[in-house]
């Protein structure tokens, strides 16, 4: 009865809702990464090195708003803070940032790329890749710079 009487209103409502679903990209569905995380990152100490170095950092991940990528800060174990950026598609995440470059270190500086999957049920990130692109040139590498592979994982602190 209601539907018949207000058929036009119902039709318009259905169209509006449908258009809304179409306009919201699937990547916006939920921001699993937003919050504070403690992450453990293990990477080689330098290009070609077999010696692995583990560091613990804190991710403070901000909401994406209307964008498909978001900003975050990374605080290292010496309380130094740098900016980072992140992308989340479904439960797959990608984080990249420039760790603090320590001039006293014997290792070259580098850029970190962390790829993994968020597990909301356990509040963890299972890292599938931690890639360092070092500042040292290497014409044999497809990126034209040395790269190294490591690992990472993270546990949520606050969401």
């Amino acid at each position, binding site marked *: 009865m209601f539907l018949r009487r207000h058929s036009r209103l119902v039709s318009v409502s259905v169209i509006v809702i449908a258009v809304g679903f179409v306009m919201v990209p699937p990547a916006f569905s939920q921001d699993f990464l937003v919050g504070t995380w403690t992450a453990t990152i293990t990477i080689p100490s330098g290009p070609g090195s077999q010696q692995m170095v583990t560091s613990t950092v804190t991710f403070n991940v901000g909401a994406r708003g209307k964008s498909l*990528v978001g900003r975050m800060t990374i605080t290292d174990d010496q309380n130094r803070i740098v900016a980072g950026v992140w992308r989340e598609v479904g439960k797959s995440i990608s984080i*990249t940032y420039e760790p603090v*470059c320590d001039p006293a270190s014997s290792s070259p500086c580098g850029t970190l790329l962390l790829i993994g999957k968020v597990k909301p049920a356990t509040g963890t990130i299972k890292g599938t890749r931690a890639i360092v692109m070092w500042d040292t040139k290497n014409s044999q590498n497809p990126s034209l710079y040395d790269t190294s592979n490591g690992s990472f994982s993270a546990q949520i602190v606050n969401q």
Partner: protein
Amino acid sequence: MFRKCILFGFVTLAFLYTLVPCHSAAHAQDGGFTLVGQWTVTSTPIGGRTVSNEGNTLGFPVRDMVFAQDGTLNTGMVLRDDIGPNVKPLGVWRVEGANLSCTFELWCPEAQTICGSVVMRGTFQDPSNISGTMAVFFTTLDPSTPTGLDTWVFAYTGKMQ
């Protein structure tokens, strides 16, 4: 009269010295180069490679990029108003002497879309000109690369607006 001239000269010099650091601080990070500002970046293929091993590419468009600095937070953004007002791939950057590094997350609207991250390396020719290479690590797997990700590089030049 001579003393007054000397005194005036000292005051003038002191005033000029106070102006110089203010000017350079706006253009320098740690007394050197900085990316802060808006840049027009033009990309070109290296060795004729217009696509990656797996056939992925970003093409060779001219992009406007904006970099900012807030304390230790160095941020960047690519303006893609050609696609939509909210399309702004985000990044971060650092400068060591005349060398620069930036890293960006690409904008990907669909889970099925091939996506990736871009790492820029380069040098300053002068405060308003940069050049170098960009490496794109696509989400597509490629076991032949050291990272296991499909990787593509191209060259770029950038000019501050």
